[in-house]
């Protein structure tokens, strides 16, 4: 009798264990699939799907990656809601890594959604300037950046302006040869308008989370300055729609100078969409810019894989792709990049001003339209 029980027990154990063991071996053989959620324009989605992720899977065959593209950040709120719901229900999530805007990361912090990153978890994070990580509260890993710079056609502009005041003087001296895009339609226009605001008011006051519309009286001198510049703008005060339209005007030599995004400008230059004589430089005080960060949900099903991916993202191999594919600034310190890259970016790779927060930015756009474009 006792023998029978033993045999039965042994059988039961075998029945339970064998498939489990079988599954485990199968798991080790089949690569785990990481779900990577990416906000961005086509160029960023291509960077991930065509360059970064295939190279990562090649380097780490135990992982595959599935990209979920959120074009222009559409659907970002849905992803955040999904993460919050899973966290509150005590489940794991299939979002293993998310590139998104700071406002989404901000909203997830009180819910405890994210991994607090450090160079203990991700060794290569040690190569990223500490202040860049501090700016994200430690919840985002800056892996690429860009800023707005001044693009100019060196065929016509021999002595490009070095400061914002020089730039204003140049615009007045060369009517019709400069413009910035309508701030409603692109960051490169917002950067020029913000530079005018920062000329008379401290950037820090408008970059943080605080918001008080009364502070906006400090913008009055900027509106006057911009209004006075209108007659000297391209086509007697025309501001095209979007970052690309300005680059096209520069390419067609309708204008000789404009504020443009560093990554877009360098990319246009590389693809021959603007003449080779178009150069880019940062002025002083600098125009605004920012880092794009990736964030890891702390309760993802493949946290280890996500950490591996993040660490790889900050290797020279991956950072080089950021530079060659989208002409972005590297997330790691410039000193870790090869000389050739540093030379290529020498004129633009300088510190940049902070972006105004979302509420001030909305008011900047509205007031620009009222005070500058409509001229009142």
């Amino acid at each position, binding site marked *: 009798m006792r023998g029978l029980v033993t045999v039965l027990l042994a059988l039961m154990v075998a029945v339970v264990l064998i498939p489990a063991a079988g599954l485990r071996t199968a798991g080790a053989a089949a690569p785990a699939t990481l779900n990577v959620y990416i906000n961005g324009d086509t160029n960023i989605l291509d960077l991930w799907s065509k360059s970064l992720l295939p190279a990562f899977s090649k380097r780490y065959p135990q992982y595959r990656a599935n990209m979920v593209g959120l074009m222009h950040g559409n659907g970002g709120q849905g992803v955040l809601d999904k993460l919050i719901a899973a966290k509150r229900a005590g489940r794991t999530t299939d979002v293993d890594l998310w590139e998104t805007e700071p406002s989404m990361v901000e909203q997830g912090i009180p819910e405890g959604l994210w991994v607090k990153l450090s160079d203990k978890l991700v060794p290569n994070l040690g190569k990223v300037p500490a202040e860049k990580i501090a700016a994200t509260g430690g919840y985002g890993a800056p892996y690429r950046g860009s800023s707005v710079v001044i693009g100019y056609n060196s065929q016509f502009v021999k002595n490009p302006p070095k400061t914002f005041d020089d730039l204003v003087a140049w615009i007045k001296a060369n009517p019709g040869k400069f413009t910035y895009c*309508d701030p*409603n339609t692109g960051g490169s226009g917002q950067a020029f308008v913000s530079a005018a605001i920062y000329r008379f008011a401290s950037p820090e006051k408008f970059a943080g989370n605080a918001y008080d519309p009364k502070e906006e009286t400090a913008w009055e001198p900027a509106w006057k300055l911009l209004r006075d510049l209108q007659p000297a703008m391209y*086509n*007697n*005060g*025309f*501001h*095209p*729609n979007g970052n690309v339209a300005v680059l096209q005007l520069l390419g*067609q030599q*309708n204008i000789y100078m404009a504020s443009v995004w560093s990554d877009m400008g360098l990319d246009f230059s590389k693809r021959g969409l603007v003449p080779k004589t178009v150069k880019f430089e940062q002025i002083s005080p600098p125009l605004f810019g920012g880092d794009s960060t990736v964030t890891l949900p702390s309760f993802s099903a493949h946290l280890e894989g996500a950490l591996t991916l993040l660490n790889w993202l900050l290797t020279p191999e991956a950072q080089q792709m950021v530079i060659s594919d989208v002409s972005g600034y590297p997330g790691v310190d410039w000193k870790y990049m090869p000389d050739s890259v540093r030379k290529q970016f020498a004129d633009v790779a300088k510190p940049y001003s902070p972006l105004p927060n*979302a*509420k001030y930015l*909305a*008011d900047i*756009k*509205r007031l620009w*339209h*009222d005070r500058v*474009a*409509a*001229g*009142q």
Partner: protein
Amino acid sequence: MTGTGLDPHAATPVPRRREGLRQGALGLALVLPPLLVLAFLVALPAVTAVIETLTPAGGGGPTLANYARVLGARTLRADIVFSVGITLVSVAVVFALSYPLALYLRFSRGRAARVLGVLFVVPLFVPVVIASFAMITFLVNHGFVSTLLYQAGVRAFPRLVYNGTGIVLTQVWVNIPFAVLILGAGLQAIDDALIDGARDVGAGPLRTFASIILPLNAVPTMIALTLLFIGVFGSFTIPYLVGGNAPAMLGVTMTNYLTQYLQRAQAVTIAVLAFLIASVVGVVYVASVSRRERGAR
């Protein structure tokens, strides 16, 4: 009513009533989907929008504060005036070009008329976005028109895009086929005998046009004008792409207030104002159509 309803006296009216009921139900079933769409996707949002504009942000009774704020802003007043102005000019130019074309296509029998009859509808098949970009490359400095004028010795080149002129030119290009089709359909319906009769009693072409064609085609004309007005007034793509920064047409202004300035209340208020302006024209349309219906009966 405890029986089975087989009362012999009731036998005759019951099937007729059933028949009527069934037909009514069928009619209702057919009308219901569009009616529901209208109720839930048009009427309900419109009503909630109006309520929203009348509700103050801090709570409390209905107020016109949102309207006072929108109409008090000089830039927004300028946008409203600009939108109505651009719309009226566009409609007038479209009409002035379409009517002769419609007349020509109706009364000419030659091969040229047949070719033209096919050609003029082409813009109808070109998406508005593409048409807008085509107009920009055509009209912009260093574009086709400016190069041509430069060759002809014209040095002072007027701005044809990124302002009201550009919007009007593009609207005209896009809307001519639509206007010609409606006006042409009206002209087709005029009996040749009436025109021949007018000629027989000695009326010249102008007199025939003024006394026979114009009045007989009045209803299609009103329909064309009102639909053109509402189409141009409510447009977004053309003013966004071809227009300037300020003043802007209301479609662009609304979008900016909603998505760029994060001022929803203002955006909705502007939408309600735009709706009021369009509804004035809508009344004219409904009056024209119902007059035609009465005439048909």
